[in-house]
């Protein structure tokens, strides 16, 4: 999978994942890996950044098996940002797909 594409779309996938359900770090990595094959090292810094920019909220949940887990939750402006990205992506991928069709690649 092309690294440039991955980088661009990672944020969107992370936001969509957390939108469907509040998740903790490892869970999120697993979820994202279903769509895009990424280096675990890049996911957590991304989470940190999105949290610092107030798109995510975090809360701790006590766990029986060990230390408390930190869960990530989408905030209102996080959701707004996600919608924005989603829209941009749809428009963008739409234009690219059209262009590919016009260049006769699919035939």
């Amino acid at each position, binding site marked *: 999978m092309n690294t440039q594409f991955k980088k661009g779309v990672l944020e969107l996938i992370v936001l969509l994942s957390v939108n469907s359900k509040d998740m903790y770090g490892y869970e999120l990595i697993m979820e994202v890996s279903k769509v895009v094959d990424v280096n675990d090292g890049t996911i*957590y810094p991304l989470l940190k950044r999105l*949290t*610092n920019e107030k798109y995510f909220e975090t809360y701790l949940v006590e766990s029986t098996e060990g230390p408390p887990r930190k869960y990530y939750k989408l905030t209102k402006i996080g959701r707004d940002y996600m919608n924005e990205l989603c829209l941009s992506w749809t428009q963008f991928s739409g234009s690219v797909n059209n262009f590919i069709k016009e260049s006769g690649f699919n035939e």
Partner: protein
Amino acid sequence: MNKKKFLNDLEKKLNILEESERKDIINEYRDIIDEKIKHGKSEEESIAEFGNLDSLVEEILKAYKINTKYKSTDEKIKEAANKGEDFIKKAAKGLSEVTKDLSNEIKNSDLEITTEKVFEIVIKILILLVGLSFLRLPFLLIEEIGKSIFTTSFFPFSFLPHIFAFIVWIFYIVCCILITIVTFKDILFIKEKSEVKKEEKKEVKEKTTKKEVKVEEKNEIRDEVIKEKTTNALMIILQIFLIFTFFIPVIAFLSGWSIALAVAIYLLVKGINTVGLIVLILGVFSITGFFIDLVMGLFSKKKKLNFISLILGFIMFIVGSLFTIEMAFNVKYVDDLPNGFEESKKTFMYSDINTLEIDPDYMRYEFIVSEEFMDNKVAVEVSYYNEFIKIEAVEKTSKLEFNIVDQDEDVAKIIKSFVNELKDDKVYNYTTLFTPRIKIYANKNTIDKIEVENN
């Protein structure tokens, strides 16, 4: 690599962050690794999946808008400024919480100034005043050092120390202004902020949150840009400042010593053993070269210091001075002229003189009692070197004045004589060439009555 080592290394590389943030990050990574292990991966595998540690750290720090690659004094200035800012903001917050009523009143009016802001401004002004007065001290020191270098080196212009002091003072003022701008940047740019906020109020509610985020981002970026621009300006000012306060005095210093070196080499060629002196001067050059290197290092960020030149310079300086001192002790100083200079004598006869006008710096005089003279009769004998000066005596109603007229000096002759005598370790007093000797003959009564006025 095992989990403990990985987490330790990660913690060390993140030490630029606040402790709470750092702990938070380390905990999260620990959890992720534990979780992976639970799901069947080995410790090694889990850690390897994070990739290269340095890239990881870079990515993490990006979230805090920290530029990790640029490690220089710029960053240290920014850090210091930020820490100072945080401290001031905390103090301001504490003070504002005490006066809640006031803040409500002000909020109801349409001003953008909250009590927090007011206290922030007040504290900043106080700290600024104290800080700037302390800042004057290093500038004063540089001023004094520069001034003394200028006055002791062989520079022909006497007004240079004052110009230098003036330039240093101007740099100090410019620094003060820059620091003031950085400290009060939010207030100076508050107009733009309030305009943007007014725009925001006019928007539909659904869009306000989005705008807020954008405005906040814009302001943050603008703050960063301002901070960067002013720290860059400070760096440039610092560099220009160094050029004036360090390099120009150093050039004056070196030119003086270069002249001394030239003289030493000339004497060596002529046969006088000035090797010690030359070694001493080269030592001085070496030491100065080291310091120039040191200062240049601030410009080019090279950290390699050539200590050898410093040590070598010191050794040469000490060895050279020992030889020079030895040479100086061997030389005999004779308070007279060597042979080879022609002396002339002139005699004047006067009566009724009771005042002599003499300039003791330029003339030597002595009274010689001769009882064969009658009262008030004076004979004056002047000896001088007519290749170099001419003497005229002017009588003005019982006062005798001497005027010295300089002739064309035969400097080459003086130098030649000096060098020759130095070969024999002798130095003569060549000022006598320009000093006439006056002998005044009269009887005791007359001499007692004569007054000598200083010219």
